[in-house]
């Protein structure tokens, strides 16, 4: 009796073990060449879109050098992923590409924030500068008008002070 139950238990255990890869396929299965290639392509796309966001942030007046350093880190992972891929280490290639992609996505998010902040700052700076220029122009005009009035009054006063003098003509 004990032997029969032990046999049944062993059969059930074997069946469960056989079904295990179906339940947790990704954690055990090796990454295929196609999966590694698509992981690298995904990471490349993320890095390129992060770069485009950085360019927009720069156009808005941001200094994005820190983000570029992070993007170079992502590229470092991607370079290693390509080398691993060319050597047939697809697991390592996919893992490195994922690391690069994660950094790329982080940079992209930070780039969008930086762009928004720079746009707001640029707009504020533009208003301050425009108001400053306009105010200065108005002050120059008012000051000039006042100086002109003073100058004109003195000019007429000087003209009125002038007396005709008779010149002697000697032949």
């Amino acid at each position: 009796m004990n032997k029969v139950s032990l046999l049944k238990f062993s059969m059930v255990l074997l069946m469960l073990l056989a079904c295990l890869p179906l339940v947790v396929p990704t954690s055990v299965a090796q990454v295929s060449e196609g999966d590694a290639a698509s992981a690298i392509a995904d990471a490349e796309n993320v890095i390129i879109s992060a770069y485009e966001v950085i360019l927009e942030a720069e156009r808005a007046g941001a200094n994005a050098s820190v983000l570029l350093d992070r993007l170079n880190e992502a590229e470092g992972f991607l370079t290693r992923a390509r080398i691993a891929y060319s050597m047939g280490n697809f697991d390592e290639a996919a893992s490195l590409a994922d690391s690069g992609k994660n950094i790329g996505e982080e940079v992209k998010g930070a780039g969008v924030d930086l762009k928004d902040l720079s746009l707001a700052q640029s707009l504020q700076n533009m208003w301050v500068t425009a108001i400053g220029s306009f105010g200065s122009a108005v002050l120059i005009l008012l000051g000039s008008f006042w100086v002109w009035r003073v100058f004109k009054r003195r000019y007429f006063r000087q003209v009125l002070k002038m007396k005709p003098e008779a010149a002697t003509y000697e032949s």
Partner: protein
Amino acid sequence: MNLDDYRSVFMAADLVLILLAAVPTLSLTAPFPSGEPFSELWVLGPNHMIEEYPFNVQVNESYSVFVGVGNHLGRASYYVIHVKFRNQTQPLPNVTISEPSPLSGLLEYRFFVANGGTWETPISFGFLELSRQDDSLSVSRMSINEAVLNLNASTSWDSVYDGFFFQLFFELWLYDTRQESFEFQNRFAGIWLNMTA
């Protein structure tokens, strides 16, 4: 000078002062023109100087150079350097028509450089498998940094300079956001290698 002349002087002075006050605002809407944008590419020897480049090379020895790029394009740029290897008869890039070399790259380096910034990397290379047959020499494996590369390059004996010569060269490409691809920048630099030994 009569009063009308003085009025003209005052008006001219006002105009000049108002233009000066408007310069900061004008510079925001119409930026001042900058110089011609360009990228630079260089190869330095192992001591970071333009000397002592590896020339006479042997199998299973390691050699190093530094490759660098300067960005003067007025914006952050995304570059790729293609590392290529050729013999004396294979084509170099054609700078007259901005065509890269048709040879396939052994390896590539992609990187970002801020405007006005530079990027530089050490490149160590070595030859792992060479074979010689009469007056021809073939390279089947070489290493560049941590990568081991299989290649099929061969050259013939150069009777003028007495040697087997190859060239390791670097092409600079730039990512074009409008084309959504890398474009050759008409810049390349390389070193000649004598494999006679």
